[in-house]
């Protein structure tokens, strides 16, 4: 393993990676590799083990079993060396409310052993990058959620990391703030920074990730690019049919199932609508009409990662 053969040595390498808390298994023997320059995503419902995995990569949580290397180094012995080259955006902001916006970055730079002058230079540059220059001397508390998130991203970049770990970077943000963040992350990616993120927003995963794994109940259940996953687990299009309740006899599921039979490779009936997974949505809709179905509304759309996600992790609510 040599440092200067990034193709041969993945930035992150995990085999049988396991994390247990007492008798609870948070991560159950997962395998994955993240290559240099990639944007890699962990998708999954709450409690699937995404954050535990990220914390092990970030070397703040000891590995229970299995193999993990980051930059080719073992977190158990080279934690500080690994962290020196990592940027971390944790799920909670963890900003210092006792310090100003600028000071939050300054001291973080000091933690990475930058000189005060260098830390100040980078802090100013980063505040500019995340559009917070005008708030430099303000306290952190009155900042909006989106601003705090941007500040955390700026903070994670103070050591010019080659790998950025982002745990649900845009949860709770409004669409404007999310798009601004995506734009900044995209720019970092173009500069060659490897991104590794968790999310349960499918649009975020489609926007940002070259490759992703879907986690469910501590295991990886699928892996691939967003497109590959859609091709593999769902059809090209989805036909959504809604029926009026009570007026139309087709509201009855037994009737419905009978008449939709053979219409598509997979049909999913939800309380409020029926999803028909098919290569050609228009054709399937026409067939449904021919068979006498009179839905209140018909929608043909492209299949998304969300369909993959729900297919793989189920529709029951995870608390």
């Amino acid at each position, binding site marked *: 393993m040599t440092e200067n053969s990034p193709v041969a040595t993945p930035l992150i390498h995990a085999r049988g990676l396991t994390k247990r808390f007492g008798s609870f298994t948070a991560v159950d023997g997962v395998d994955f590799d993240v290559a240099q320059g990639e944007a890699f995503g962990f998708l999954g419902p709450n409690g699937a083990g995404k954050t535990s995995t990220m914390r092990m990569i970030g070397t703040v949580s000891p590995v229970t079993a299995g193999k993990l290397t980051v930059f080719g180094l073992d977190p158990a012995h080279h934690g500080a060396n690994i962290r020196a080259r990592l940027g971390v955006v*944790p799920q909670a902001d963890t900003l210092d409310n006792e310090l100003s916006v600028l000071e939050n970055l300054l001291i973080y730079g000091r933690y990475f052993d930058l000189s005060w002058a260098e830390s100040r230079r980078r802090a100013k540059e980063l505040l500019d990058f995340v559009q917070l220059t005008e708030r430099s001397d303000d306290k952190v508390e009155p900042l909006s959620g989106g601003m705090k998130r941007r500040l955390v991203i700026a903070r994670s970049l103070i050591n010019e990391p080659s790998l950025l770990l982002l745990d649900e970077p845009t949860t709770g943000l409004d669409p404007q703030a999310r798009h601004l963040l995506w734009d900044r992350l995209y720019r970092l990616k173009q500069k060659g920074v490897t991104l590794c993120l968790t999310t349960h927003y499918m649009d975020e995963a489609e926007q940002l990730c070259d490759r992703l794994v879907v986690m469910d109940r501590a295991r990886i259940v699928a892996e691939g690019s967003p497109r590959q996953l859609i091709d593999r687990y769902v059809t090209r299009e989805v036909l959504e049919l809604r029926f009026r309740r009570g007026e139309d006899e087709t509201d009855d599921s037994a009737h419905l199932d009978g008449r939709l039979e053979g219409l598509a490779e997979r049909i999913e009936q939800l309380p409020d609508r029926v999803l028909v997974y098919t290569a050609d949505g228009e054709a399937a809709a026409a067939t449904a009409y021919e068979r006498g179905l009179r839905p209140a509304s018909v929608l043909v759309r492209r299949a998304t990662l969300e369909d993959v996600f729900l297919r793989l992790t189920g529709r029951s609510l995870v608390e």
Partner: protein
Amino acid sequence: MAVVGLRLAGRPGAIASRRSLRVLEHDLLVFRRGWTNYIVAGLSQPFLYLVAIGIGLGLYVNRNGSLPGGVPYLDYIAPALLVTQAMMAAAFESAWPIMGKIEWDKTYHAALNTPLGALDLLAGDLMWIGFRATLLSVLFLVVIVALGAAASPLVVFAVPVAVLTALAFAAPIMAFTATQNGDGGFNALFRFGITPLFLFSGTFFPIEKLPLFVQPLAWVTPLYHGVAAARSLALGQVEPIALTVHIAALAAVAALGIAAGRVTFRRRLVV
């Protein structure tokens, strides 16, 4: 500080690592915002206490001439209050603010994403508490000298005694804080631990006045040793063996606290 730094950095023999100094820098950065308040409070509090209790109450105490050696009450109580104040500040600083960094603001968790480790946080914040105790004690000393409340120039050594006492409280309380999930335990700690110590460790009256069966309790509390050592220095009545025992007792408690903190900090922050 050498005792405190001992093995703190995780390498045997290392006096506080360079990384833990970064944590101290953080605390000084916060301190910089309000340092004038610290100075004003650091001078006015001792002045009020010494005037009210040392001079005011002292008027009545001195009239009876009941203190050993006929020492003026102001002189008797001044070094004790100096130590007590450092202890109080240290006890507070190692409870709520540390809980904030662990649980409420989670800034420790942000620091752990850098090359800093859990033990750097422990060492750095302990140094900060030592720094704050030093500052408070120096200010207290200024007031003591200004009021002419010290019989001996050795009173200056009451400052390191106070700092050591502060650390003997800070280290075990920090260790305790890392085991807590909220501040509920602190109320009990202060109500049943710190406040009684403040009142019954020989601060205001000689522990020989306590009932016989209670006296051994005073001997095992670090505050008693801090008060006794500082008082002997300020009054110029130093007994080398007794002073050595007092210092050794304080250092032992601080060292035990640090050892406990190394365990509880790791257990809490590295999961």
